[in-house]
């Protein structure tokens, strides 16, 4: 057999699987988004955008991503640097940091609900300490800001580890001699991080950021658990159109919008964090 064909042959099953269970349903969804009663139309998108909730939905989703992702990136970089430097107990530290990864997003939302709820841990603690007389409504419909903060905290707690794991792996790929050379040639630890680690980490940064940004646009269960309908996000609205309002076509349009945003940001980060071929390790 021709040796060149072998890799493609080996990829065939996975490709077929993707076609049957992803591309085909995707085509169906796309078809539904652009049709109503079998005729081509953009009405579904108009309906979606015309909803009074829509601007808030987009704003909340983007704002959440814009706040959560940079904080997570900074934290993940810090944690990854510390973990990479450990001589012993490195895998133990990784496992501990990665615990939240094993918890579903809904469960994570519920954990934080148990903390911020009217009768939750935080209120119990505050009243036990005598700081408050009556429990505070952190998650009430009037306190949008504290709902938002609770969601941000839950998201950071839940999904920083995924970035960290990717970055730790990436840092492990950078040969130690580059750091040593930088050290000999006068770079302080901070300079070494900025001038050596960050640039050489670009491929992993790219993966981590793209993955995290896509996840951020799909945020749903955590928000649903903590905010209910008080903090509408894109994914929540898609769910609403499908199951509450029973309009599959608009739901499909909404899903396509999320996909488009995700693809847009993916392309952006692929471009911004591109490593020229000649400058690779």
């Amino acid at each position, binding site marked *: 057999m021709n040796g060149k064909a072998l890799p493609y042959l080996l990829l065939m099953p996975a490709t077929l699987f993707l076609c049957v269970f992803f591309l085909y349903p995707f085509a169906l969804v796309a078809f539904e988004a652009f049709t109503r009663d079998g005729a081509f139309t953009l009405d579904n998108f108009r309906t979606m955008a015309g909803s009074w909730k829509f601007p808030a939905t987009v704003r909340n989703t983007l704002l959440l991503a814009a706040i959560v992702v940079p904080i997570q990136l900074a934290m993940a970089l810090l944690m990854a640097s510390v973990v990479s430097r450990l001589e012993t107990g490195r895998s133990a530290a990784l496992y501990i940091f990665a615990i939240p990864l094993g918890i579903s997003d809904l469960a994570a939302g519920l954990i934080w609900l148990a903390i911020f709820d009217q009768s939750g841990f935080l209120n119990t603690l505050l009243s036990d300490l005598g700081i408050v007389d009556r429990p505070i409504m952190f998650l009430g419909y009037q306190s949008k800001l504290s709902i938002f903060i609770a969601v941000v905290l839950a998201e950071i707690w839940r999904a920083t580890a995924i970035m960290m794991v990717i970055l730790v792996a990436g840092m492990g790929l950078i040969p130690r*001699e580059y750091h040593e*050379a930088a*050290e*000999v*040639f*006068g*770079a302080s630890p901070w300079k070494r991080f900025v001038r050596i680690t960050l640039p050489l980490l670009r491929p992993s940064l790219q993966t981590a950021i793209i993955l995290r940004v896509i996840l951020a646009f799909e945020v749903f269960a955590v928000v649903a658990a903590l905010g209910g309908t008080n903090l509408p996000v894109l994914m929540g609205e898609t769910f609403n159109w499908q199951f509450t309002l029973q309009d599959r076509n608009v739901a499909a349009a909404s899903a396509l919008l999320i996909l488009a945003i995700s693809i847009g940001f993916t392309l952006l980060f692929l471009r911004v964090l591109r490593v020229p071929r000649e400058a*690779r390790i």
Partner: protein
Amino acid sequence: MAEIAIKGVAKRFGGFTALHQVDLTIADQEFMVLLGASGCGKTTLLRIVAGLETPSQGEMWIGGRRVDHLPPRDRGIAMVFQNYAVFPHLTVFENIAFGLRMKKLPQQEVERRVNRTAELMHIEQLLKRYSGQLSGGQRQRVAVARALAMEPDVILMDEPLSNLDALLRLEMRAELKGVLAASKTTTIYVTHDQVEAMSLADRIAVMHQGRIVQAASPVEVYRNPAARFVGSFIGNPPMNFLPAAKAANGSWSVAGLTLPGPKSDRQAIEFAIRPEDVEAGEAGLPAIVRVIEPLGPHTLVTCDVEGGLFRAVLESSATVAVGDRLRLAPKPERIRWFDPETTHAI
């Protein structure tokens, strides 16, 4: 002014001792070569001087300052790494400029120094390239240029020419020597190539299994090896060794020949002579010719003496044939003697 003093330095990696009690002083502006076989601890010693490795024991002094506790960047050194460590994400220009930028030198000065060192290393046409677009030899020259551009007090080089082809190596060797002599830096240069060591060094420190066996001028190391290892390691072909049995006090019997030698309590010591220090003649060590290799200026003859291998460098005019019986007379003033137990010279 940068004298380097290594005082009682030892290094253990877990249970393995890579360096035993190394003592070495390198004078200001001296060119010291660390020479030894692979795995003898050259890189480890260099890394300890640089501060990239902490000694398990002992002290490091540079320029009259104790530097054990100082990070590499505060030791006034520059280094050429054995595997280059040319940054892949920076151009050759920025690689050479790296240390200068860390020192916050003005752009004009950075450019001046980069261009000058690039010219010295013949890489001026490569300044815009990335490391991934260079050959091993070119990368190595970038690494050397990066160190030279720092104009440091001390420059540490770990086999900086190992990847160049023979011709370029010869050329670079001469250039390096000139450049470093002019720059007044103290140099520690690691190599396992003895010709390179001989041609560059003010002094050679011969290392063997984590110890410095001898530190002396190239001629001294060649002529008067302090230990059997030095004689067998340095010189191509290396020294010949033959067992010597006591004939009388101060006289030793070597392959049937009685030679005057050192006074010793031992009954048996070792006789040593360099291949070029014997002459074929009427009297001498009885040898049977096994292999003849004409090398141009002279002829290398490998013989059997007392059942052991013995090499002799003869004039190319000598007419010998395989199977010939020769008498090889050692030049008396070139004979060396070694204690077989301590392996030290007597």
